[in-house]
């Protein structure tokens, strides 16, 4: 993420962050979003954002 993109996002979200802190925020967001931007969301269309936790007894039946 560039500083320019960060500023565009701030404008769109109506969020203000001090100019001297933008680089730290840019690094934080770059790290957080790296795996997301690296993922080809078309590669596994059946992958759903479901969050379920089954017990140890059923492990392996449906992922977890």
């Amino acid at each position, binding site marked *: 993420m560039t500083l320019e993109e960060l500023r565009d996002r701030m404008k769109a*979200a109506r969020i203000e962050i001090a100019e001297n802190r933008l680089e730290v925020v840019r690094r934080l967001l770059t790290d957080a979003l790296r795996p997301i931007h690296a993922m080809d969301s078309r590669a596994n269309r059946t992958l759903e954002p479901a969050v379920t936790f089954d017990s140890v007894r059923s492990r392996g039946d449906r992922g977890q």
Partner: protein
Amino acid sequence: MASEELFYATIRDIGARFRRRALSPVELTRAHLERISQLDGKLHAFVTVTADRALADAKAAETALGRGDISSPLLGIPIGYKDIYATRGILTTGGSALLADWIPDEESTCGVRLQRAGTVMLGKLITHEFAFGIQFPGHRYEAARNPWDLQRMPGGSSSGSGAALAAGIAFGALGSDTGGSIRGPASFCGIAGLKPTYGRCSRAGVLTLSWTLDHTGPMARTVEDCAYLLQALAGYDAADPASSREPVPDYVAPLGRGVRGLRVGVVRDYFFEGIDPEVEKGFEQALATLRQLGATVEDVQIPTIQSAGAFMAIMLSEAFAYHEHDLREHPERFGELLRERLLAGGLITASEYVQAQRIRTRLQTDMAAALRRVDVLATPTSPKPAPTFTQVYDPEYGFPRGNTGPFNMTGLPSLAVPCGFTTSGLPISLQITGRPFDETTVLRVGHTYEQATDWHKRHPAL
């Protein structure tokens, strides 16, 4: 003042002393209150000490013991609560100026359960601001200090919980863990801390940081003490939408079964990046100990482990959603660092949040596959020992990438247990992670390792 040995005894040992009338809950509580008054001026572990309440709880425990009630192993045991657990009629700050005057009219479910078990509430323990932002100098609340080195962080966000336990001013503590806030302080303070499976312990009455990542759980000086606390805390709670109806097993009885025949998996990617050589050495020695105890240790692969950093996108987004109203109306009431982190969450798009949750599903599947091959995963809890305050107060200090977040992403039970010290005397920690709701095996491995070593018997000079 009572002897140092008393303050570092185990819950089992204290219970035995109570039963043979060698010690009373009131004596123990008074000794703790005196020790808190002597030590906490330099540790800043407590926000609020509830002395009157503690003595009332202790007298009630003493009465119960007097009539022969020994049904709870936690009867008369002094406990501290992280200050994000709502306590009826008692100040609950969240470590934040925003809640500096908040006196809840509700009690957290975990608090209710500990009280039913007969524990003594010593007070409220400082937390990083809303469990996320370190208190900088000038903040309304002082940051807790690491008892092993007062110039260092005790970790967070359950910072007061970790400091109090290492300093021997509480026997147990309630912590919470969204990205490592139980296990991080346990690692830096040389104590034990368990993040149970998501849904195992109730979040009701606990301030939210990130709904789908928040876990509550116990912190103590030994694994067995954590097991006693978990036994009281675990179980379904209708007040928590994520609470599980999974039956609660006996967590204490299986602790002594050893690790012979158990399979321990080591993930060599991700968890060793940027690791301190002394931490790595301590971890490898812990693996050698587990082998000597009869466990099989083997490397395992989690193909998507490098995507675990997406955890931060989920946490930032959910934290912003939770705090947005106050952030926009009262930004000045948030510490500068916390405000900055929360606002960063408002810059993540809806699509990015959903993709992060999809990555989470994939990571869960991969971890489940690894945990079909082995019984537990072992990693260093933190790649580095506790940093100094000078380091974390540097404006350029970023959010450190920890080894704990992947197990919040996947909701798996994960335990931190001491596994050594650096040459400068800072604790090193082993993280043991198991299958969903298999806290029993996680605790068993941790307890067996702990009993074979003496790291947990070392205490800071205060």
